[in-house]
């Protein structure tokens, strides 16, 4: 099927493609948010070496040239209102330089958070900003802010690695990285999914899930919020919750797990042939159970990067889909039985994750009849293994740090990202939350119990969930 259409935009003819379902999730977020910066992703990548500004500018330009999604623009047809995307041809770009080397870290973070809160002009404008920066202690690198409709966190990591690898190749004679994958090819593959046999199989799976009895909302602070909603709606049997806020004001709290503790998790996962994500999900779901009267029916929304093929791993763009991952695990199940049940559910979710997230949300609402914004999950989760491979080896002997900056907005009430630090492979847990949905104390409480359950579980894999709950 041919998806491309020629469109004349500003007097120039471009090859235009419809937006993919993954991109439309972010357009939908924009539609329901009063502020556009909610879709910004701000990061910084810094090497502890003397800065060669000319080489870094060159590396950034080469990386932008190789990465089509960095040059993607969205166009709204003024006649039909339809949204289209196209790729701007590469043009050499001048990247500004800011020297913060004499500044305090807190002040620098404040400035870079502020930059991240600058909204992009979604329809027609450039959707990224890169600035070369120097930090204290000899760290130099670049700040990168990008619109979520052109990149997700996997793409941000792939692009940042590409810049760093080109920079190291230019300066230190390291191998020049292999070319990026074609973004347009990945878009075409996504668009071709609509109406395919795979879509039919995925729809059957999700419809089967929606035919199950209604799930129950389990809040990360306990049952209080569901009770309040039941009172407000005068419905004692209400099972859905609601965690949307009017302005999306949010923040992120980061917890760094030391390398030894991270290795304990990795060793456990290897020993029992379980994905690391499953081990962490087991801990989160057990905490939600503990906080909600030992509930056995727990739903956590799982974000899937959909970066399986070699093309998708290096094609940039946004491919992330998300679905509720519902597990019903009895309290008498052992830790290992719980983890294997979670793995089975997660495998099924992975197999059917090409299905449109927005379509699923619509069908879920039709199936259970809840109000707009209703849901059964209070926690969103993603595990990002991306940074652990390669970069640590590549930078042997060179200090490296990576930072995520906040736009001050959060599209999700509670979004936990587990990600390995590029410097030492230890796990970072990022708790992104909306200010109306959680307090820093509640986040601290959630992290504390997640850690307790996690390590009690891997030390006692044959204990039951009930025993783990009682131990923590």
């Amino acid at each position, binding site marked *: 099927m041919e998806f491309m259409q020629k469109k004349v935009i500003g007097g120039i003819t471009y090859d235009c493609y419809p937006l993919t379902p993954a991109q439309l999730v972010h357009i939908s977020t924009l539609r329901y948010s009063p502020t556009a910066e909610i879709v910004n992703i701000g990061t910084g990548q810094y090497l502890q070496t003397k800065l060669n500004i000319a080489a870094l500018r060159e590396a950034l330009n080469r990386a932008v040239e190789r990465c089509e999604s960095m040059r993607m623009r969205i166009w709204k047809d003024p006649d039909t209102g339809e949204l289209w995307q196209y790729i701007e041809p590469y043009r050499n770009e001048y990247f500004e330089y800011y020297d913060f080397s004499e500044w305090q870290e807190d002040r620098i973070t404040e400035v870079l958070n502020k930059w991240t809160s600058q909204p992009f002009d979604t329809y027609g404008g450039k959707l990224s900003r890169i600035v070369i920066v120097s930090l204290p202690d000899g760290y130099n690198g670049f700040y990168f802010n990008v619109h979520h409709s052109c990149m997700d966190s996997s793409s941000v990591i792939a692009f940042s690695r590409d810049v760093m690898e080109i920079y190291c190749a230019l300066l230190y004679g390291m191998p020049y990285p292999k070319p990026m994958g074609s973004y347009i090819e990945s878009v075409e593959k996504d668009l071709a999914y609509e109406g395919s046999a795979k879509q039919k199989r995925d729809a059957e799976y999700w419809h089967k899930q929606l035919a199950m009895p209604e799930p129950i909302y389990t809040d990360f602070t306990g049952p209080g919020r569901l009770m309040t909603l039941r009172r407000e709606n005068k419905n004692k049997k209400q099972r859905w919750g609601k965690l949307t806020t009017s302005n999306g004001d949010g923040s992120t709290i980061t917890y760094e797990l030391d390398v030894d503790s991270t290795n304990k998790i990795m060793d456990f996962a290897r020993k029992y042939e379980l994905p690391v994500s499953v081990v962490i999900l087991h801990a989160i779901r057990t905490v939600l159970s503990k906080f909600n009267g030992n509930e056995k029916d727990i739903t956590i929304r799982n974000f899937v990067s959909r970066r399986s093929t070699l093309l998708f791993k290096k094609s940039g763009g946004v491919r992330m889909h998300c679905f509720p991952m519902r597990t019903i695990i009895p309290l008498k199940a052992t830790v290992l039985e719980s983890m294997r049940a979670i793995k089975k559910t997660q*495998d099924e979710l992975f197999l059917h994750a090409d299905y449109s997230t927005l379509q699923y949300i619509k069908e879920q609402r039709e199936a259970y009849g809840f109000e707009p914004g209703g849901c059964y999950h209070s926690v969103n989760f993603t595990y990002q293994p991306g940074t652990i491979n390669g970069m640590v080896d590549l930078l042997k002997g060179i200090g490296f740090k990576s930072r995520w900056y906040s736009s001050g907005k959060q599209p999700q009430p509670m979004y936990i990202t587990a990600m390995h630090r590029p410097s030492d492979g230890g796990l970072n847990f990022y708790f992104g939350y909306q200010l109306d949905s959680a307090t820093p104390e509640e986040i601290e409480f959630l992290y504390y119990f997640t850690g307790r359950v996690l390590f009690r579980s891997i030390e006692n894999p044959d204990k039951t969930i009930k025993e783990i709950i009682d131990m923590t």
Partner: protein
Amino acid sequence: MLEKFKEIICNYVEVAPEDITEDSRFIEDLGFNSYDIMCMLGDAESEFDIEIDQEKIADMKTVGEVLEYFGGLVNE
């Protein structure tokens, strides 16, 4: 079927087709992770026009075991 399956596998991992044998283990030898395996199986479903039973395939570790299972489905 082996040749076609090798083609599918090579879309996911950087391994030369000639290095893939029926004894190759997906995770240890070919470098798959659990997510890649599920996606690769989804592609195989489309390519061979079969429907995989998750429970049955969960413990299969090698290319040969999976191919044997696929062969049974194709002949059903």
